């Protein structure tokens, strides 16, 4: 395992702040309400799509700093699994198990379709490159 340069940690912190603020702003603009949480759904699906698309961008392949700023940083901060869990829990608590299941499975299924579509646009080699950039090897 390679040690993490402070430059990469700073890039993730900065990108994470940007992504989280973006999600917060969208949530303020179009609140989820008490039915199907469409805003969080759209955030998670679009974020998963964008992350799968990153390897297709040449500047991202050239710069590890940019790759972690955008991947684990912006898109990791933009998307959320904790809010999705809490929304699912809240729907179950309200006695709406069908809606909770539709939301949790719908988010997962749609996000996976989005990732598959984005994957078609970036070659396998490019995807391997970004996996290394993600800092998890």
């Amino acid at each position, binding site marked *: *395992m390679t040690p*993490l340069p402070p430059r*990469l*940690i700073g890039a*993730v*912190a*900065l*990108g*994470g*702040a*940007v*992504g*989280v*603020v973006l*999600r*917060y*702003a969208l*949530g303020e603009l179009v609140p989820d309400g008490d039915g199907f949480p469409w805003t969080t759904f759209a955030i*998670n699906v679009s*974020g*998963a799509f*964008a*992350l*799968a698309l990153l390897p297709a961008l040449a500047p991202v392949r050239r710069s590890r700093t940019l790759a*972690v700023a955008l*991947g*684990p*940083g912006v*898109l*990791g*901060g*933009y*998307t*959320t*699994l*904790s*809010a*999705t*869990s*809490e929304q*699912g*829990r*809240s729907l*179950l*608590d309200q006695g709406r198990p069908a809606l909770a299941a539709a939301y*949790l499975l719908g*988010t*997962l299924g749609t*996000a*996976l379709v*989005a*990732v*598959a579509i984005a*994957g078609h646009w970036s070659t396998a080699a490019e*995807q391997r490159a970004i*996996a290394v950039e*993600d*800092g*998890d090897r």
Partner: protein
Amino acid sequence: MTVLLVAVGGAVGATLRFLVGHHLDRALPFGTFLVNVVGSFLLGLFTALSLTEPLLALLGTGFCGGLTTYSAFAVQTHTLGRRGALYAAVTVLVSLGACGLGFWVGQA
């Protein structure tokens, strides 16, 4: 002001996720699994504690939102192929359970 709290919490949460992922994600992404479960537990806890709006912005929307990730989870599930179904099911169910546990603890 709220935006600043969200940004600070998000920066800390995202950095922690990156470090945990760097140290624990291997062929199976244990690090990402861990931060998603812990973040879901904490958000359930913070929700039950009825935190003030600034605190919820810092710790909930910011920290828990930054700590957990759906984008990496979805891409990892896709990359894992056949094992992805198990990874996805375990992540979603354990995170939901952890969130419920956190909420329960917060109410007690």
